[in-house]
């Protein structure tokens, strides 16, 4: 029975309202008056009151049982910024419209008032909420609340959602960005694939790690060994944002909080730079994202920053090329 109930009402919650406590106070008084006087009009009133209570309970339960909801994940969501989700509420009842339904997201602020959902119909409502943490989350479960036709109780059910939402770091107004300017050689030394832009500077023999797209096929065929082209960049240096993932201690809440601030600063600086149309690269611990521009690159950087985690000392050191340069890092204060 319990399993069946849980299947129909997952995460069921029942909260009495003030009207219920008034009802609980008044109905026994009417009952005692009816019992004491034998006045059948009072019995009629008592019966109607109890009948309305039962009817309200039955109908709200029926409504809740036949409601379902799906959340459409947002196109992009930044931590701490209002984001508009779309919730589709469907009423599976064949005869009773759902009325006065409130839709909330479990663990998140915001509520949507759902207008009347006709029998067998569905309604899509916007729900503005705020994600408190960056990262990949399961889609928030909508919590549907029904309190009508008579508001004695707020009955709620939680409808878990499949799917995930990626929340980008918080956007902040930070001070001057700490840019790491790397020469091309340093960039190559970081281990990232060489960009194919620029003029060909020289030809040389293929070495492990070279991009196959840089192979000069004619010379390779002619010399019977792999030959690659080395190109010269028009821009001598690239602008990188470097975030050191290593914390002095991993279990320090203040450090973790500060690390989140660093991630937000890096993301905000990257977005500001990209908005000006200038290329930005990203170094997160040992992994490097080469500089680039455009919406796709911005999304790539934001996804990486959304998923970055702090690590302990020595677990993911920065490449030597940027280790001593300007970087976003936490150091132990003395």
């Amino acid at each position, binding site marked *: 029975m319990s399993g069946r109930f849980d299947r129909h009402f997952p995460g069921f919650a029942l909260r009495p309202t003030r009207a219920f406590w*008034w009802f609980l106070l*008044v109905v026994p008084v009417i009952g005692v*008056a*009816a*019992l*004491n006087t*034998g*006045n*059948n*009009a*009072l*019995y*009629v*009133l008592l*019966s*109607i009151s*109890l*009948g*309305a209570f*039962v*009817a*309200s309970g*039955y*109908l709200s339960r029926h409504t809740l049982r*036949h409601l*379902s*909801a799906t959340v459409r994940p947002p196109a992009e969501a930044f931590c701490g910024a209002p984001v508009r989700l779309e919730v589709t509420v*469907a009423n*599976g009842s*064949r005869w*009773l*419209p759902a*009325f*006065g339904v*409130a839709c909330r997201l479990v663990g998140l602020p915001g509520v949507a*008032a759902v207008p*009347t959902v006709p029998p*067998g*119909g*569905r309604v899509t409502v916007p729900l*503005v909420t705020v994600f408190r*943490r*960056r*990262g990949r989350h399961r889609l928030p479960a909508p919590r549907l609340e029904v*309190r*009508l*036709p*008579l*508001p004695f109780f707020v009955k709620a059910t939680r*409808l*878990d*959602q*499949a*799917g*995930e939402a990626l929340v980008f770091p918080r956007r902040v107004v930070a001070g001057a960005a700490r840019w790491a300017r790397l020469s091309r050689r340093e960039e190559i030394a970081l281990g990232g694939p060489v960009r194919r832009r620029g003029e060909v500077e020289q030809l040389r023999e293929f070495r492990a790690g070279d991009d196959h797209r840089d192979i000069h096929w004619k010379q390779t065929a002619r010399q019977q060994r792999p030959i690659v082209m080395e190109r010269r960049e028009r821009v001598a240096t690239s602008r990188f944002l470097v975030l050191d993932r290593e914390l002095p*201690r*991993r*279990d320090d809440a203040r450090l973790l909080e500060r690390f989140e601030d660093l991630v937000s600063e890096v993301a905000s600086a990257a977005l500001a730079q990209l908005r000006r149309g200038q290329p930005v690269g990203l170094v997160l611990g040992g992994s490097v994202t080469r500089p680039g521009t455009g919406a796709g690159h911005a999304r790539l950087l934001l996804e990486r920053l959304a*998923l970055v*985690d702090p690590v302990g000392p020595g677990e993911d050191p920065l490449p030597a090329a940027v280790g001593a340069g300007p970087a976003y890092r936490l150091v132990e204060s003395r």
Partner: protein
Amino acid sequence: MSSALERQRWVAALALAVAVPLPLTGIVSWPFLLPYLAAALAVLCARRPRPALPVWLENLLAPLILVVVVVAGGMRFGVLRPVAQLAVLLAAVRLFGCWERRRTNTALAVVGLVGIAGIASSTHPALAPYLLALLALIVVGTGRLETRALVEEAGGGERPGWWPPWRLVAATVGVGVLVAGVVFVLLPRLRSPFAVSPLGSRPVSGFREAIALHRFGEIRESRAPVLRLTFPGREQPPPEWLRLAGATLQHYRGGLWAQGRKGAERLVPGATGAASLGEPSPGGATVRAEVELVKASDVLFAPPGAVLLEPPESVAVMRERLGTLRVPRGLALPQRYAVVFDPDLVVQPPPDPEDTRLPAEPEAIVALAREVTADTGDRLAAALSIEQHLRSSYGYSTALFSDLPLRKDPVKWFLFESREGHCEFFAASMVLLLRSLDIPARMQAGYAGAERDPDGGFVVRDSHAHAWVLAWVGDRWRVFDPTPADGRPAVAPGERGMALRLGWQRFEGWWDRWVLTFSLADQVGFATGVVRLVAAHRDTIVLVALCAALAVILALILVPRRRPVGAVDRRPADSRIGRELRLVMAQAAARGFGGGAAWTPRRFAAALERRAPEAAAAAAWLVRRHEACAYAGERAPARAEVLAARRAVSRALRRLPVRPAA
């Protein structure tokens, strides 16, 4: 319209709605009701939220209200009346400012008290539709205010709420009534039922076989049908034939009329099926009347001159000493019987000393009787003089005699002080006036007059209840009726729409019988009936129950379960595999690697590949299948496969050393 203004209007509308029964039941008089109605209307029609009265003014009005209620009678006439008066005056004060959240609840509480008082004092069957309408109003108002609050919480500003769909309102009222019917029948009754009259006294409706004048409340003229009467072969029967006696009252003690010494014999029908009640007058013509009793009674009504009774089938009829025809209580209705009567005859035992007994200190009554009859020696002339005197010098009224002193004889009070009353006062007064002249007299109670029905018969209602006088004049009993013409029931012609009216009146009768007077005896009778029914048809009931159970089982098996239109599956698509994956990820987190907001299944699989290569394949399979189910809508793999993969990963995780958190 702002939400505060809308809340104010709904509270005021509710206040007006609950006040509907008050003027009809009379529980609250107009001087109390008018301030309440004025306040409710003022609040309802206001274009902006009405502020609350100043605190000093409320504090001043509170004791004033209390004083007014006490001056108006206080608890003298019961509890309900002063409570209702107090509630309406308090509500008139509290309705101002009811839009403020802290005052809304108290305003609603006082208005609710007004409503309870109004309903508790209602006896009319219109209470039923009224309650349904009130419930619908509450559902609509609540829905409107709740959705408005919800819209505001959701950031909708001052946008109005939504109106509840009619289907929801109808369903609430319908289901509520169905449940209420069952609850009403089952609620325990420990006291005898009664309907409250406006001032708390017992109302009177219809025939009574014992009359207590000094406890006489207001007459409630119920129009519930009591019986139907036909005179076969007589198209235009004279009105005198429509006098049906139920009880003859002989003893008078301190305002109480009773039948006196008991003594009953069972009537035994003869070969013709009729039992003799008396001998017709020599040469007198007899008339046959057929009666259909439709209201529960333990008395059969018959004309005073009834000489033959064809009793209801299979019913034992006892005839008491003064002619009352008593039948067992709780007979199934309707009961049909026939009476043959002599219109010129009154069948009663001859007078005895009790018929001339007077109350204590009868001097004033004797003096009045002598004055009215001018000391005439003719008994018939004396009786007619008294009858005429009462008809012409006293007024008829069914109003409540609230100022009737408890220690004073009601008849003397009627004759010398109030000089107005209803038929029982007139009949009782004439009996005592006649007795003061040594003329034997009795009071008879029953029904007089009727209403024609479309079938050519007559309908006798509660409102035709009447009392009259039997006087021993000229060596026989004769009927006198001292009640003025406006209080004497007469024959009313049938009207257009009679069938509709009859239907409504039948409903009134049903309401009287099954709602207002529904009692513990009815509950016991109902339960007994059910037990008997079950006992009598046990085999049939078992068979029907078995068939029903079989039908339900077959329906559950055969009828395919369809998902309702528009419904969305509540279970996430990855429920099984996702659950297993979350389990192993939590296990990994417990062993010190992974966890956190950015810890995704793919990262978990990658990390496991580095640290436990033997489980990498299983983990990767789990992740791939999870993503395929969750995002590509593919079918979930078999449960056994999922469990095997999960166990492989779990085993590998258990072998890993626990990594410290920092």
